């Protein structure tokens, strides 16, 4: 019997379990679906992948004009455009990837109803496809940093930690909303609004330091607060606020577990109701 795959088909169980072996077996599918989403993202657009450059650069320009005229933030020694760009590239990744992932089942109905694969691959690949844009915007950030003669310290080595936190957070919310979207198309209307509120509540275009000392730890429950603050600290050689980062890390893990739980609980019905 060696080497023969045995599949047991059973009604939906009452407990939730994640089959890691099954996921590993489908890792190539994750790769291909991500590749597909990357390839079709800018198909039939006139300027193609230039959008990945224009989106952050134009937004930073607008923010700079608005906030350097009307509201001066104390950004310490960091030039405002650089601060805004560092926040924006993470935000744009989070925003675009969650939006893309949330519709991944609804727009791939034919896959869900005609073939089996671990369902979580679909929102995960939609979210991961955003990494290409993120990589492009990191290059822009590097060019900005050179232009502003930013001094890079050893701390920059910690930056990937915060990027990974952002990716985990994004995949988690992406899977959560993709699952909810299968049953409740309300997600389509509610999500853009929620994302907008989330952006304003997160230190994207302002530094985390302007949040009052007393409320900073409450704001840190928002995982993006610690991610953005930690990412900036590592880039610009500012002291880390480990308390804020710690709280955000915990809430990232909580979001991830909660999303996974909801997803596993809902996924058995996808093919029947999507």
């Amino acid at each position: 019997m060696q080497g023969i795959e045995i599949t047991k088909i059973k009604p939906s169980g009452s407990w939730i379990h994640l089959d890691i072996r099954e996921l590993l077996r489908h890792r190539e599918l994750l790769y291909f679906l991500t590749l597909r989403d990357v390839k079709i993202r800018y198909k039939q657009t006139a300027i193609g992948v230039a959008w990945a450059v224009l989106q952050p650069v134009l937004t930073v320009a607008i923010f700079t004009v608005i906030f350097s005229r009307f509201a001066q933030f104390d950004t310490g020694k960091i030039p405002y455009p650089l601060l805004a760009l560092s926040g924006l590239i993470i935000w744009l990744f989070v925003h675009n990837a969650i939006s893309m992932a949330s519709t991944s089942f609804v727009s791939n109905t034919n896959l869900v109803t005609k073939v089996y694969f671990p369902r979580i691959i679909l929102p995960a690949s939609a979210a991961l496809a955003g990494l290409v844009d993120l990589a492009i915007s990191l290059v822009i950030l590097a060019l900005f940093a050179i232009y502003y003669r930013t001094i890079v310290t050893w701390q920059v080595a910690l930056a990937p930690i915060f990027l990974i936190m952002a990716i985990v957070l994004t995949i988690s919310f992406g899977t959560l909303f993709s699952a909810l979207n299968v049953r409740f198309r309300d997600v389509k209307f509610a999500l853009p609004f929620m994302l907008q509120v989330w952006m304003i509540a997160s230190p994207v275009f302002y530094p985390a330091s302007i949040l009052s000392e007393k409320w900073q730890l409450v704001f840190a429950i928002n995982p993006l607060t610690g991610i953005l603050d930690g990412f900036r600290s590592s880039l610009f050689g500012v002291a880390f606020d480990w308390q804020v980062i710690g709280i955000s890390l915990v809430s990232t893990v909580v979001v991830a577990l909660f999303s996974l739980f909801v997803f596993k609980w809902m996924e058995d019905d996808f093919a029947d109701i999507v």
Partner: protein
Amino acid sequence: MKTIQVENISKRYYLGDRLPNSVRDLIVRLLHVGRKVDKNELWALRDVSFDVAEGETLGIIGRNGAGKSTLLKILSRITKPTNGGATIRGRVGSLLEVGTGFHSELTGRENIYMSGAILGMHRAEIERKFDAIVAFSEIEQFLDTPVKHYSTGMYTRLAFSVAAHLEPEILIVDEVLAVGDTGFQNKCLGKMDEVSRSGRTVLFVSHNLGSLSQICKTGLLLHHGEVHSHGLIQDVVSDYLKLASEQPGHFTLAASDDSREMQISEVVITDHKGRATNEISYDEEFFVSLKININHIQRGAMFCVALLNKYKRRVFTEHRAIEELVGNKTGQFRVKFRVPGDFVAPNNYSFLVQIFFPDGEVLQELGDICPFIVVDTGSNLASYKDYGYVQIKGEWHVVRE
């Protein structure tokens, strides 16, 4: 060793609105807790049990809504059973649709990889079979063209080629052969035959009883979600024909695929009063009524209705451009074709309907459906056994010379 053991599988669906589909709906529902909702349930499968031995080729047949597709979906793990279970030994590959995973913006080459990965092939495996897939599909020169520019035929050929090169231990196939031109269909049938000969276990759902009996050794007949019979394919097919004749003059497509651009989903023979029937009086007109779903009109597509005699040869063929009949509209239409009375001679017949293109490509073909009898209710030929197939109001003239 049993490769597939299915034990008491049942599947319940809720028709309509048992589950809330929006938050508003959910709130409304919560305000009405306790209302019974069970009226809307439907058992697509009920206590289905059977075994499939290693290397067996099982044909699954049954009418529309008999539960065939649901069964395949459960065995492919796309959906879960409500009760019961199954044990499957070996890697399963399922083809429930032609072109699963194809994306119209990607090129043929990219889609081969994409579709292969979705059907469960590894990258190395796809690379190894790549040339064979391309050769089988006959689309070499369009390999780097996005498939949205392909004709339906090219698209189908490529899609089937990827699928045909899947080499799982167990293959589950649902009615994928109903498309493509005749030549390619034969090629596909040959491939299916090859697969079954290679010792793999195959589950095959099709309406084409001919190809089914050719490829499969055993059959399973589902009727209203239950196993009606299970045994040698010939016996199961004849059981099916017995069942089918209970609903006279009616044909419904088993796996109607709403994503198709154009599809005939139902064919009914009706008498002059509009009743479905399989007995027509020789002197009365009757109608062939087709239900067709059109999502997108393809230029030049034609309907064809042909009357087949008992030897399955055409008595007459009529065709008409689809655009001419329905205009530029999309949606569901009922197309009626009138056969005048006093024309078809008393005998046994069936129909063949097609959607085809003048270049010979056949989009859909339903052959030998709606068997019916034209009965003699008092013609002056009643005492003869064989009337031929048409009766004409010929005239006799005599002149003395």
